């Protein structure tokens, strides 16, 4: 068996790849759903209804998609340059941490100034989290996968330490949670009575910005070149190290803003369960989007709808809600294979 590159890739296949991957993963997971005793079609129907069936469901789905757009974008930007940032989870918490320090009373400004400041500081916090791993990679050849992964655990412990210490809310009835952010730091809700907040607009804005950066700027071109062939990029005179550092800072920064959006838009305060693995799910989002900044919006919405829908399905049909994590990870693996089949053909002789 050999795998050969296709000389011409039909555009239809590029569009079909994610659809085929998603259909395949639904089929593969049907067995697990059936195992729980639920009827497959009824369960999937409940999932669909729970994710998209009402205004409330749509609000929940897009509220869930918001952090995933940020973390998916963070992964997409980094992976495009073949920089394996698996630390979006930690960067998200770093962003949330700095927002908690600044937003719960330390800064008292007009929302019009306050929110941009908080966006920038959360981005800086996230970016700094990734500065260490990228410098270690460049100067010592330390694999960034392991360092970013391990930093996730360190940051979470740091958050736990601070939430039980200096950042603990005195009114929190003893729970390890921080004080809520002030009104000026809150991201406004988009509709009355629904949890969907303006963090979504911020996420969409960043997707568009990253898309423009990738197709219209020198940096975007260099980032792609470094990812495609590092040796050739260096030979062409590109500052490979600087490009990698820039990539890392942008990627970490975007993940940091996810922390701001979740604290200031969704939860109101920092807790230890702020993110149920948004950082890791972001990797799936990025791969489903084939690392395209605008595609991330679609794939994040899809992944979010599975999570929100599975919650509803779990309540009505008794299928454990972990099915969502299984479906999402299966769709990642299916997507990897289907993208491969688009770019390559398999010869069996």
């Amino acid at each position: 068996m050999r795998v050969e590159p296709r000389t011409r890739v039909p555009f239809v296949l590029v569009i079909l790849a994610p659809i085929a991957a998603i259909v395949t993963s639904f089929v593969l997971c049907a067995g697990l759903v059936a195992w729980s005793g639920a009827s497959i079609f009824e369960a999937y129907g409940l999932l669909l209804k729970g994710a998209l069936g009402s205004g409330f469901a749509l609000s929940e789905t897009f509220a869930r998609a918001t952090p995933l757009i940020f973390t998916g974008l963070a992964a997409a930007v980094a992976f495009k340059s073949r920089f394996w940032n698996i630390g979006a989870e930690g960067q998200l918490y770093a962003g949330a941490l700095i927002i908690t320090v600044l937003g719960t009373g330390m800064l008292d400004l007009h929302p019009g100034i306050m929110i941009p400041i908080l966006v920038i500081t959360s981005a800086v916090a996230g970016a700094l989290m990734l500065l260490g791993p990228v410098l270690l990679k460049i100067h010592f050849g330390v694999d960034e996968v392991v360092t970013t992964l391990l930093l996730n655990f360190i940051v979470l412990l740091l958050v736990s330490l601070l939430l039980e210490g200096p950042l603990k809310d005195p009114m929190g009835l003893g729970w390890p949670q921080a004080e809520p952010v002030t009104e000026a730091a809150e991201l406004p809700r988009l509709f009355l009575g629904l949890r969907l907040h303006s963090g979504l607009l911020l996420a969409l804005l960043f997707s568009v910005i990253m898309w423009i950066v990738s197709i219209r700027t020198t940096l975007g071109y260099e980032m792609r070149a470094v990812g495609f062939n590092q040796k050739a990029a260096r030979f062409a005179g590109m500052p490979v190290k600087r490009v990698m550092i820039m990539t890392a800072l942008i990627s970490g920064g975007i993940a940091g803003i996810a922390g701001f959006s979740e604290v200031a838009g969704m939860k109101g305060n920092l807790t230890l369960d702020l993110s149920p693995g948004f950082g890791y799910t972001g990797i799936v989002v990025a791969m489903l989007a084939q690392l395209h900044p605008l595609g991330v919006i679609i794939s994040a919405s899809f992944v979010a709808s599975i999570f929100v829908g599975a919650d509803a399905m779990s309540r009505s049909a008794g299928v454990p809600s972990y099915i969502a994590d299984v479906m999402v990870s299966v769709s990642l693996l299916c997507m990897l294979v289907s993208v491969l089949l688009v770019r390559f053909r398999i010869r069996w002789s």
Partner: protein
Amino acid sequence: METSFAWLEIFLNASFWVAAVRIATPLIFGTLGEVICERAGVLNLGIEGIMTLGAMAGWMAVYQGAGLWSGVLFAAACGATFGLLHAMLTVPLGLSQHVTGIGITLLATSLSSYVYRLILPEVNSPPRIQAFEPLEIPGLSSIPIIGEALFKQTPLTYFAFISVVVVAYVLYRTPVGLAVQMVGENPAAAEAQGLNVTLIRTGAIVCGSAFMAVGGAFLTMSAFNAFFFNMINGRGWICIALVVFASWRPGKALLGALLFAAFDAYQMRLQQLLGTEIPYQIFLMMPYVLSILALIVMSRRVGYPQALMIPYRKGER
């Protein structure tokens, strides 16, 4: 004056060394498994998930009435299955080893949670099983401190030590081991020698993943006797760092795991000693910080397998 030497006395306490060897056991299995995969040229980031799956599968088999060793075997088989999946995607298809590995970890972890919750719907405290009992080696176990630490452990710990010797022997002294090393260093040359690169790499990943799963199973079948979500808690990632620390050698992997575990056991006791003065999270961070430091220190003089992370496609230059 009373407590001033307490931090030193920890080392004289046999229970400290016993704990160190116990903590080391899953790390030995995990690191050994990863060494086998990487020696054949394939990074296996599925390790964290495969360990979780092994922990769940082994425990569940015993909970459903299987014998302890059948449970270990079942865990190994589950690990091998996911290893085979990782191998199929990364070796013949040549997909990104990073992304595939993360995918395997996400899948194995979520599948473990799903299956556990399906079989055991909401329970207040996780049920326990009758786990492996410590097995004293007559004679040797009466040596003070060392005897207790090394020869009063559960059977899986002895199995870990034996595995290190066997893997080292196979890797360095048998044709199979040399073939594994060769496909990890120079697959094109191996192919020219008439070796089947795809088959050898696949075999190495399957075998390595089985070891990882047994490492996970140790936690539920010899240490905690119950399964918790998130119980692997980064141990797999620490194993990846330990592989670098060990320069991809089984013997050094054993040493690295023991050193690391001794440090971990020490920080736990220090934590009890200084409990109120320093927040416990600082101590819990130590293993992760230590792993990163080990990576930095060792990274300059490592002889990593030359073809690591490079997919091999026949006839491609």
